C-alpha cells in the first residue's frame, strides 16, 4: 500500500481551514443561540432580527427555578423585594410563590441517566468478557439477537412496554426508567465492549492465572485496566442516549420520575411564551454530558479510532 506524502499547498491549507471554521460555526450556532437566549429578556428573545448584542439578565434562570404569581401594585408597595431575584420578578408586577420543579426533574435525569449508564456498562463489560473469552453455546446467534434489539427504533415497542410497566408497577419510577434505558443501551454496550476486549490478548490473563489469581481476579486486575478506554467511550455513548431520551420519558413518567427532557417544553406554558426560561433549562441540561465528555475526552478519541489503527 502506498500513501501520498505530498505537502498540501498554501491554497489547500486555507481551504481546509475555512471548511473547519465553517463547520464549527454551523454546529456551534444553535448552541450559542440557546446559551445567549438564556440570558436575554423575554422581549429581546423574540426580537426580529435577532439581537446579537443585548443587556444580559438572569430573568430566564429566575423564571426557570421559580413559580410566580401576579400581585396588585398596593401589595408590591407594601412588600418591597428583599433579594435580587425578587427584584427581577417585581418589575413584571409579580412575586415568587415558590421553587419550580426543574431542580427535581434535573436530579431525576441525573439519577436515571447515570444509573442506567453504570448498569449498562457494568453488565455490558461482564457479558462482553464472557462472549470474548468463553465458549458460549450459540454465541453468534446470541450476539445477533442482542444486536437485533437495535434494528428497530426503541419506541416501536412503546405500547407493550407501557402495558408491562403498568402491570409491574414500574410506571413513573426511577427503577423502571433505569431498567428501560439499560435494556436499550445494553446491546450497544455489549458489542462495543466485546470489540475492545477482543483486542486485549488472552496471554495477560493467562499469565495472571499462573501467577496465582482466579479468573475473576485476573479480569479485575489485568483486563479491566486495559479495557478502561473502551469502557469510558461506551459510557459516554450510553449516557448520551439515556440523558437525551424523550419519547419514553414522555410516555412513562409524569409526577415522580419525570426527567428533564419532557419537563423543559412545559416551561413554555407557564405565564406566556417564556423562551429565556426554556433556553436556560436547555443550557443547564447540556452541561452534565458536556462535562462528562470533556473529562473522558482522551479516552473517547482513542476509543473511536480503536481497532482502526491496528491491522
Amino acid at each position, binding site marked *: 500500500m502506498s500513501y501520498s506524502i505530498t505537502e498540501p499547498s498554501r491554497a489547500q491549507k486555507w481551504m481546509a481551514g475555512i471548511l473547519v471554521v465553517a463547520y464549527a460555526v454551523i454546529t456551534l450556532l444553535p448552541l450559542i443561540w440557546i446559551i445567549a437566549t438564556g440570558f436575554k429578556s423575554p422581549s429581546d428573545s423574540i426580537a426580529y432580527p435577532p439581537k446579537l448584542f443585548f443587556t444580559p439578565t438572569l430573568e430566564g434562570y429566575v423564571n426557570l427555578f421559580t413559580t410566580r404569581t401576579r400581585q396588585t401594585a398596593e401589595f408590591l408597595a407594601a412588600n418591597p423585594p428583599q433579594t435580587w431575584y425578587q427584584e427581577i420578578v417585581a418589575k413584571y408586577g409579580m412575586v415568587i410563590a415558590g421553587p419550580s420543579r426543574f431542580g427535581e426533574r434535573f436530579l431525576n435525569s441525573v439519577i436515571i441517566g447515570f444509573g442506567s449508564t453504570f448498569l449498562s456498562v457494568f453488565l455490558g463489560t461482564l457479558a462482553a468478557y464472557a462472549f470474548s473469552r468463553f465458549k458460549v453455546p450459540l454465541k453468534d446467534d446470541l450476539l445477533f439477537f442482542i444486536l437485533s434489539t437495535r434494528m428497530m427504533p426503541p419506541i416501536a415497542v412503546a405500547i407493550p412496554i407501557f402495558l408491562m410497566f403498568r402491570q409491574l408497577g414500574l410506571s413513573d419510577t426511577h427503577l423502571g426508567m433505569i431498567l428501560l434505558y439499560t435494556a436499550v443501551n445494553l446491546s450497544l454496550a455489549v458489542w462495543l465492549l466485546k470489540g475492545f476486549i477482543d483486542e486485549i490478548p488472552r496471554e495477560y490473563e493467562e499469565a495472571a492465572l499462573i*501467577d496465582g489469581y482466579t479468573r475473576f481476579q485476573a479480569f479485575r486486575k489485568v483486563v479491566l485496566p486495559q479495557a478502561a478506554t473502551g469502557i469510558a467511550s461506551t459510557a459516554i455513548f450510553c449516557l448520551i442516549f439515556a440523558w437525551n431520551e424523550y419519547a419514553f420519558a414522555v410516555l412513562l413518567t409524569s409526577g415522580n420520575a419525570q426527567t428533564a427532557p419532557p419537563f423543559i417544553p412545559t416551561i413554555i406554558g407557564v405565564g406566556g411564551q417564556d423562551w429565556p426560561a426554556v433556553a436556560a433549562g436547555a443550557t443547564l441540561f447540556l452541561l452534565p454530558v458536556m462535562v462528562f465528555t470533556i473529562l473522558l475526552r482522551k479516552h473517547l478519541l482513542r476509543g473511536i479510532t480503536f481497532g482502526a489503527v491496528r491491522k
Partner: protein
Amino acid sequence: MAEITLSGITKRFGPITALDDVSLTVPDGAFVVLLGPTGAGKTTLLRLVSGLDQPDAGRVQIGGQDVSTATPAQRNVAMVFQQYSLYPHLTVRQNLEFPLKSPLLRLPPEQIARKVGEVAEVLQITHKLDNKATALSGGEMQRVSIGRALVRNPAAYLMDEPLSSLDAKLRADLRIELKRIQHDMGATFLYVTHDQIEAMTMATHVGVLDHGRLVQFGPPRQIYEDPVSIHAASRLGQPRINILPATLFGPAPAGAAHIGLRPEQIRQGEGEDSFVRRVEHLGDQTRLHLSFHNHDLITVTDAHTGLKSGDIVRIRPEKPLYFDASGARIHQE
C-alpha cells in the same frame, strides 16, 4: 519442588491432534528440555501442565497429586511465555511483584521488596524497575518475564523459549543462572527451546516431540549419540547430521535406507575423494561443505585448515548411524 507425571495425554484442536498419547515423567529437581520443530506440540504440552488448557484424555500429576482438574493457581507452577506477556499497564516492579501479591501468597511488603530486588539484580534490570513494562526492549521484556517466574518458589518452572531474544552474552549468563537455580534449589524445570547449546548444557533429560508424539526421552548425550530416528537425530548437533543414501559408502545393513553421519563420524584423509565446495571459517572451527558422488554434506575440520574450495579431500564414515525407509533407527549388533 515436585515431580511432574503426564500419563496418556491427548489434545486435539479441531481436526488437528496436537498431542497424541504422551506419557512423560519429569523427576523432582530435573531439568527437562523439550525439542521439536514448530507445531510438534511443545507449547501445548506446557499449557496442559500449567492448567491453561485441559487435555482431551490423560492425567497430569504434580508432586504425586492428580491435578487434571485443578486451576492454574492451584497447580502452583510458574511459567515464562514465549510472547513475554508482561502486564502493559504496570511498571517493571509491579510486574515482578504481581505473583507475590496474589491471594495465594500474600507475602509481607518487606519480603516482596527483598525478593524483587534479588531477582532484578540477577537479571540486570534493577535500573529499569520503575519503567513501564511497555517501555522496554525485547530482551529486557524477556528478562522481566523470566523474573516474574523466578520471584516465586513454585512446584515447577515452565519456560517457553525464554532466552530466544537475548544477546549471546546475556544468554550465556542466564543459562548458568537457570542451571544454578535448578541445582541449588532443586527446582524442577520443563523447558522448550530450539537452541542446541541450551539443550546440551542445561538439560538433565531431553524429550523429542514429533507431530504430537514423544519419540524419545533420555539424557541429552543419549539423544545425541543414540537417536531412535532421523527426526530425533536431527534435533541435536551443529551442523546437523548428514542424511545420505545408505549404500553411498558401500554395503549397508539389511533394511537400511539412510546413513546418518555427524561431523565426528566422518574421518578425513582416508577413503574416497570428495570435492570441497565451500569453506566457512567460524573462528573456533571450520565447516567444510563437501560434494560426494553428487550428494552434499557438511562436516567440521581443524580451525586453521589449509583447505579451500576446489580442493579434494578423502573421507570415510566411522561408526555411522543407519535408518530404515521410515526414518527409524536400525541397530547393528
